[in-house]
């Protein structure tokens, strides 16, 4: 390992966040309970710091630490998305944690460490580095999900997530060890080289590849490894659910793409069938099971499984179209998902969250603004123009057709018509029925700001996405050292 200045500079964002995150833990005992929100603001500053550091690395392609760690436009894009998502999450958390009486200072530290884990994931040039990133993120998630210590559901969700997550990690690690056993290397470029020579397609490589795919499918909650999602999403504090569903998933997709396009691209024909199956299964499970949910968090959990199904379509064929499609999808998905969870966590009924779809009944009468924002998020998630979700799906289908999977695009659009039903059901509840019970919608300034940003981005990405498209186009470069 060589700690030359280049290596240090290249990992500066991660170093900032780790140091400042640790500092948060140290500061926590000295901050009085009333002033805990200062810690949140501190965390936002830490993220902005890291963001500036990442901006400084823009446009560079650096293999660091002998290729164990890669800084390239692709990873920088994902890091920017991670910062944005985490900042928005913190804005949503500040008042939420107070109301739920779970405002502990460590929360922000865990949030930052999870972000560091994700950043390591999207930058990993080596399967062990990658594993460290995944575990750092997951461990923070386990804690965050169980944050409501007094709530049985929260603890149960945390425990379930921990057990299943540990399984998934073990399977992933087993896959990595098989790959290492077969090829003698665990760097992505080394694996790519090994697999591209024709003699390498041994069962051991296959088994390793499939097992790593299982690990990733678990992380992006693609079927058939999605079972944990509804329970965990429902049980976790809503703000954590939003964070996992948006930022966590974005990062997992980033690393999924890098590993499969860089290391395994030579035997694409062998894994593309698996991806197709995962895509179809996820779209079916996500869109159809969501139809019968009454809890909106569970519904969004299934919807996120469905969205994972659309997104994995972009992994099928390494091309500019697919890369753009996935990045645009992730970028849009972040805002609309966070926004939808944001509305849920702000809506309250007698001290409880408005988690049931029936809590949304007649919302337009009481609070037209909340209803309208939710309408934007729902139609965008359903992929109806003029919102960002439409263009995101559009590019995914374009990538599918470009890759020669027109039939898969047809399956996708048909299932998204099925899926539209459960989104418009929420709109129906809000606009077409009369209110029965009082749900309060009183965002404070922070929440209002976060909602404004997410809603505005959802609309802008559908109507005038030009600046973001330019930014993504400059990030369409994956460095293979």
């Amino acid at each position, binding site marked *: 390992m060589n700690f030359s200045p280049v290596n240090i500079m290249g990992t500066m964002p991660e170093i900032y966040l780790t140091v400042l995150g640790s500092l948060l833990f140290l500061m926590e005992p000295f901050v009085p309970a009333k002033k805990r929100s200062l810690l949140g603001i501190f965390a936002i500053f830490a993220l902005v710091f890291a963001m500036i550091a990442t901006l400084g690395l823009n446009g560079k392609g650096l293999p660091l630490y002998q290729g164990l760690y890669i800084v390239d436009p692709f990873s920088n894009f994902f890091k920017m998305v991670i910062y944005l998502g985490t900042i928005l999450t913190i804005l949503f958390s500040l008042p939420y944690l107070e109301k739920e009486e779970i405002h502990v200072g460590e929360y922000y530290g865990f949030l930052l460490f999870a972000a560091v884990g994700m950043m390591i994931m999207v930058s990993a040039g080596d399967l062990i580095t990658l594993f460290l990133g995944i575990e750092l993120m997951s461990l923070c998630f386990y804690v965050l999900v169980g944050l409501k210590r007094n709530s049985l559901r929260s603890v149960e969700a945390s425990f379930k997530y921990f057990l299943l997550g540990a399984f998934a990690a073990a399977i992933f690690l087993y896959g990595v060890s098989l790959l290492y056993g077969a090829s003698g290397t665990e760097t992505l470029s080394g694996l790519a080289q090994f697999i591209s020579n024709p003699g390498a397609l041994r069962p051991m490589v296959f088994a390793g590849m499939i097992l790593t795919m299982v690990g990733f499918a678990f992380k992006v909650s693609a079927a058939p490894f999605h079972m944990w999602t509804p329970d965990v999403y429902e049980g976790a504090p809503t703000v954590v659910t939003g964070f996992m569903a948006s930022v966590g998933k974005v990062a997992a997709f980033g690393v999924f793409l890098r590993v499969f396009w860089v290391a395994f691209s030579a035997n694409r024909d062998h894994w593309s069938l698996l991806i197709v199956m995962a895509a179809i299964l996820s779209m079916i499970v996500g869109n159809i099971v969501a139809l019968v949910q009454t809890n909106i968090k569970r519904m969004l959990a299934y919807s996120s499984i469905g969205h994972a199904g659309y997104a994995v379509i972009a992994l099928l064929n390494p091309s500019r179209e697919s890369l753009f499609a996935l990045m645009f999808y992730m970028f849009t998905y972040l805002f609309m998902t966070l926004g939808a969870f944001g509305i849920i966590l702000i809506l309250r009924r007698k001290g409880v969250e408005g988690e049931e779809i029936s809590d949304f009944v007649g919302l337009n009468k009481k609070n037209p603004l909340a209803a309208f924002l939710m309408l934007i998020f729902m139609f965008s998630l359903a992929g109806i123009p003029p919102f960002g979700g439409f263009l995101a799906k559009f590019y995914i*289908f374009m990538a599918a057709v470009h890759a020669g999977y027109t039939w898969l695009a047809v399956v996708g659009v*048909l299932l998204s*018509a099925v899926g*539209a039903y459960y989104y418009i059901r929420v709109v129906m509840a809000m*606009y*077409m029925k009369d209110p029965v019970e009082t749900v309060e919608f009183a965002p404070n300034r922070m929440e209002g700001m976060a909602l404004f940003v997410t809603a505005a981005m959802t609309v802008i990405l559908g109507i005038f996405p030009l600046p973001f498209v330019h930014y993504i*186009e400059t990030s369409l470069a994956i460095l293979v050292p």
Partner: protein
Amino acid sequence: MTFLSVPILTFLIFFPVVASLLLLPFYKRTGTDGVVKWIALGITVIEFLLSLSLLIGNNPHLYQMQFVENHLWIPFGNIHYALGIDGISLVLIVMTTFLMPMTILTSWVGISKNLPLFMINILVLEGAMIGVFCATDFVLFYVFWEAMLIPMYLIIGVWGGPNRIYAAIKFFLYTLAGSLLLLVSIIALYFVGGHTFDITRLSGQHYGMTFQILAFLAMFVAFAVKIPMFPFHTWLPDAHVEAPTAGSVILASIMLKMGAYGFLRFSLPMFPDASHFFTPFMLTLSVIAIIWGAFMALAQEDMKKLIAYSSVSHMGVVTLGIFVANVQGIEGALMQMLNHGITTGALFLCIGVLYDRSHSRLLSEYGGLAKQMPVYSTLLVIFALSSLALPGTNSFVGEFLVLIGSFKTHAVVSSLATTGVILSAMYLLYMLSRVVWGVYTPKNYAMPDLHAYEWGSLLPLVVMVIVIGLLPNPVLSLFHQSVAHLVGQMQPVPLASLH
């Protein structure tokens, strides 16, 4: 042409949308509904007057797109914000802007709940509908096409009748499911047609036959649901019956035309060979729609349902005209689209007048209205006669042209379609005999004749019925060149150019 230094088409699309923000301050206020109505009416009237400038500035001797605007919208995928109109879109746009003030007037007393939101929806919908007719980039077209669903969904679902939620969801899902296949064929066209979404450049290329057939079928579903053609029509009666009068008028007069517009703008010029291949199939469906729709209309007790099924029948004439694919047929289809917009819109407005008074649409509840509401009855008779294509009214021109056009090539189909005219006379005269004449029902005793706002909504339509009926030529000449060009594009490739 520009207005306030904004290109006119962009202005027409976004003026109602932006102007609808004026209504936001009245949200959740009581006692301001009057102001809201007048503002909305003012916006739609201004929009209509502005759209007349298209008629003035349009050069009817050109088949090319006019008033063209083209900007790069999203660089990835070469998606443009491209607008332009030819004769076909021109008449449909003017028809749209002409009808929108009527929809506001018909909601004058009918809508009491949350009026500002209703008007905002109507105005946003107007912008999106004009966008559909102007867009010359396929993705932009699709964005407007789908975006229309949101306000229409809300209009049916929030201000509709007792079964409105079911109707709204059915409308939304049916249309969405149909349109999504259109999306896939748009994407496929992009890759096959040379990495562009430009509608003009995608037309007139001769794609491979298999591709043409598949893409034609995918688009067929989208447009057939919208029209609606025979097996896809089941959403229509539900949506019409439950929608408020304004919603029914917009649905019947404007949104149904979009399916036919889609066939004319995309299916025929892009897939001429597949269109020829499917002609027998399309003609069969059209004839079934004409006869089936008419028979269903005969059996209805609810007036809105009756007119809804008559729409299915009349739109069958439109698709018949489109797919015989000669100049008379297509011109007749366009005339029929325009006239159906005017006449059926007017009939829905008339039913709305009755519904506002007695809250019933059942034929059995009425009778002898000629005594109580003579003016109203006269207008209703005129519109009904127009709908059954009496010579001298507008619909006669369209149906006659379609029948001539189809008789030249498909005599049997044409004769079968003629029965539709007879059947439409049956159900419409039956309706008149029950409502206008017939036994005087005491229940109708307290029904005043037309109010001023109803005059405002019906009078322009009567004028149009008679003017177009007597002088169809100025209208026909608007789109003659475009139709001739379209028919030219449909010709099979000359052998010499094949290699």
